[in-house]
């Protein structure tokens, strides 16, 4: 309760993050129900494109989450050097995931699958781009922390920032798994 | 101490202006509209009494407890009262809601012995068209590419389909009195709404859907059809008429129309 008490900021950051996650869940919830309704509304459903490259991207994103967890453990132990290595790895893998998604979109376009080709392709692009946009936001926070960490200006008070960024990153990982399930299995 | 007087005067004026029924529903032309009117009256009476009592009480409390230097009574509330008025309003409101469910069920869900006459209704920005299957009782095939309003083919009836040869297209909705009519509502562009005041019902016409909608008019006469869902700049002029005639006149009209085709 005491606003001046230590830990108030940390708690506030976490509460704010969880509130934000609720709104993201509502957005993707609306997206999902739109997809269910749209699929049932008409007989032009042709499945959802889900290239195999998505598995590679999923692996990359999973690895980046593992790296994030490793980094947090190093930070708790006070091992700043190892933290920097793990966190940098996670940032790099995050960038690689986004690059991989861009590659997926390029491949689909090359194969003639566009946003307005059929309902499945429309939902695929909207879902993946919305996810990537959220992920890019998380990645910017991650990269900012990384930059501070590499310049050794990441103070001990930044534990909260690292934790919040990590939770958000894991959440986006889970969200991705959910979307992948929707696209690969539910949609076809 | 103007406020109680203003609140009371407002409540009296509002209640009186409802009571005189100067601007009111048109006369009902079937049993459904008559039941609608009686259910509405009951609702209006309940809401009117609550309205009047609540406003009168509000004014009275303001008057009685105006500041005359008296000490306010400290009271944090009363669980018994909360339970009392919660249960009363719950019963009253849900009761009112349930009471009108039958009327809704009757129009939209009940099965009919008489399959009735089928008429297609097509709406576009900003006109109505109605199609009758003609003497053969069958609608001809349509193709959206053949739609041509200028050539009198707003439905896009396929020329060489024999079932369509005798189809009748009209810009007014003519129905026989006392019979169930199954309207098949379609729109080719945006959402419109089929509303006839005297029938007390309305239904959206949604592009991409064919919505069956049942009507029955008992009293012969002409009644205006008004679009009641915003459809663009000509929304206010999207008008047609429902012409209710005797079965005999209807049959004559149908024969004459079919002969003209």
């Amino acid at each position, binding site marked *: 309760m005491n606003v001046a008490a230590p830990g108030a900021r940390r708690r506030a950051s976490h509460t704010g993050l969880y509130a934000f996650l609720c709104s993201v869940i509502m*957005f993707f919830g609306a997206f999902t129900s739109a997809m269910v309704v749209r699929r049932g509304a008409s007989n032009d459903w042709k499945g959802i494109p889900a290239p195999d490259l998505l598995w590679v991207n999923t692996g990359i994103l999973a690895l980046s989450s593992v790296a994030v967890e490793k980094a947090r453990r190093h930070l708790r132990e006070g091992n700043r050097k190892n933290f920097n290595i793990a966190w940098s790895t996670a940032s790099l893998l995050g960038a690689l995931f986004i690059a991989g998604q861009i590659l997926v979109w390029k491949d689909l376009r090359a194969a003639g699958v566009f946003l307005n080709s059929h309902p499945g392709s429309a939902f695929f692009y909207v879902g993946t781009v919305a996810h990537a946009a959220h992920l890019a936001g998380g990645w910017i926070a991650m990269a900012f922390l990384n930059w501070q960490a590499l310049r050794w200006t990441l103070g001990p008070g930044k534990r909260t920032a690292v934790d919040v960024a990590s939770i958000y990153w894991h959440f986006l990982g889970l969200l991705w798994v959910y979307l992948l399930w929707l696209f690969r299995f539910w949609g076809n | 101490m103007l406020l109680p007087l203003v609140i009371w005067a407002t409540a009296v004026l509002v209640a009186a202006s409802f009571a005189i029924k100067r601007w009111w529903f048109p006369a009902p032309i079937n049993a459904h509209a008559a039941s609608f009117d009686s259910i509405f009256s009951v609702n209006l009476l309940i809401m009117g009494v609550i309205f009047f009592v609540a406003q009168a009480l509000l004014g009275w*409390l303001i008057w009685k407890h105006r500041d005359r230097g008296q000490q306010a009574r400290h009271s944090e509330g009363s669980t018994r009262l909360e339970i009392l008025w*919660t249960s009363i*309003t719950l019963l009253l409101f849900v009761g009112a809601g349930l009471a*009108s*469910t039958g009327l809704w069920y009757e129009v939209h869900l009940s099965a009919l012995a008489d399959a009735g006459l089928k008429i297609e209704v097509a709406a576009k920005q900003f006109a109505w068209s109605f199609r009758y299957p003609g003497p053969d009782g069958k609608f001809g095939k349509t193709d959206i590419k053949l739609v041509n309003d200028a050539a009198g083919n707003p439905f896009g009836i396929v020329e060489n389909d024999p079932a369509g040869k005798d189809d009748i297209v009209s810009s007014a909705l003519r129905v026989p009195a006392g019979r169930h009519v199954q309207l098949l509502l379609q729109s080719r562009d945006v959402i419109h709404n089929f509303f006839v005041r005297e029938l007390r019902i309305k239904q959206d016409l949604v592009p991409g859907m064919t919505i069956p909608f049942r009507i029955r008019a008992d009293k012969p006469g002409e009644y205006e059809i008004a679009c009641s869902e915003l459809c663009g700049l000509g929304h206010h002029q999207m008008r047609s008429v429902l012409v209710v005639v005797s079965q005999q006149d209807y049959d004559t009209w149908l024969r004459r129309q079919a002969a003209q085709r």
Partner: protein
Amino acid sequence: MAAPAGRPKVTNMNHGFLRRYLFSTDHKTIGLQYITLSIFAAFVGIALSVLMRFHLVYPESRWRLLETLWPDGAPGGVMTPELYLSLMTMHGTIMVFFLLTTVPQGGFGNYFLPLQIGAADMAFPRLNMLSFWTTFLSFVVLCAAFFVEGGAPLAGWTAYPPLSAVGQIAGPGQGLGQTLWVLSIALFCIASLMGAINFITTTLELRTRGMSLLRMPLTCWGWFTTAIISLFAFGVLLAGGVLLLLDREAGTSFFLPAGLMINDKLLANKGGSPLLFQHLFWFFGHPEVYIAILPGMGAVSTILATFSRKPVFGYRAMIWAMLIIGFLSFVVWGHHMFISGMSPYSSIAFSLLTVTVGVPSAIKTFNWLGTIWGGSLRLTTAMLFALGFVSVFISGGLTGLILGQPALDSYFHDTYFVVGHFHMIMGVATVFAAFAATFYWFPKMRGRMMNETLGRIHFYLTFIGVYAIFIPMHFAGIAGNPRRYADFAQFDFLKDLSFLHKATTHAAFFTAAVQLLFLFNFLWSWWKGPKAGQNPWHATTLEWTLPSPPPEENFGHNPPQVHRGPYDYSLPGAPKDFLMQQEER
């Protein structure tokens, strides 16, 4: 995310003009920015409605001003139907989003939530600033629609596709104007979500010592519940907006079915569902009504208690009622769609849930009456508006029970009955609460009192005015008059209703003019009002323990210790008729 304001912040009084007044992170400045934006938006919205009402009653009259403003929309000074519909669309959008959603939460909520819970600022001050400027940008983008080719959109504030999704061929304003509308709403969603996150975090984490949840003033409960509703509702509207934008700009078919022929042109779309948009829109749209009114309910409860010198009757029941309203608001959206072509069975379910929302609303009304019952009523302008709120809330709420029944709504849907209903319950009630809040808190925000005589005149004329505007609309609705008609000349049955429309229009002119009294009072009092003390109303909540206006750092290094609930008025045996929350006795 910006750093939370856990510790007392350093005052930035020595910042330059930009940081102090424009890009301030101080919740009080941001609150005032929201209030200013809302007042401006309200007068724009009023002006649009006056033009609309004028046209409805005098459709043939030529008005040079109109031609100057809209050369295409009013050639020769006569308003075209498309201009009428675009004014209507903009009136609705501006009023719903930039007045009714903005002033209760963004304005008063921002200013007073931290003060009432004893915090130094909102949890994320920079995010707070970002929300305001995003809202502002959203407003600018919306207004820009007036100035682009084709003008403002004409699809109404509900923007149903296909009308809103097929572009210019469906009418002028459906081109770039409608695109700007969608963009503006998307920005507004983002701003509201940022605001909601801030309000929730602030309420949960920044309460001062002793301020348990059940010691919070009902205003805070109102803002808190509203923030939770916003958090769950705006994300869904955002999703709907994104899909609508893609249907418009990228050729997708989320909402556009096959075989659409608009203006004799066959479109290539396939398989979309127009009803899908309505579901997404109203899943947001119904909770939106409560987003507008809940903060007002909180403020009215507080103001009634203060000026009755009595605790709020049934404090806990009031909280429960708000939370139940918040929950139910998410399961009743279908009552906007009874006649839309969705399953008639679901209409019955939605209907029963809808009439159930009447119950917590009735509980609140009973408790307001209980609050003034046995009190010692001081009829200040704030109190008059709070009591007026109760009156219009009853009047507007009861018609909702009629509209909530699908069999009856089958007649009333999209008639003036609905227009009268929602203006009364959502518009007038919320605005009355906002007026009450303005008169109540102006002394705190500015350190000066508003003029009571002018305030009373403004209240009485407005009270009579709104009934005179909106009650005749109910009769037009009972006679079957459809809403959103630019002209009543085409239908025989509408000709009989001209008296009603004349009455409404003249009452609207009158009431609109009366609002200038408020504007004058506000501005005059801002500079010239007599000095207010720290606690002119002898109120109990924490903001009244600070000087007026409060210092930038609020409570600074001494956050108060709270000892009691928010409404300890007329406690038996107490030395004075109120005990403030931080007083031990």
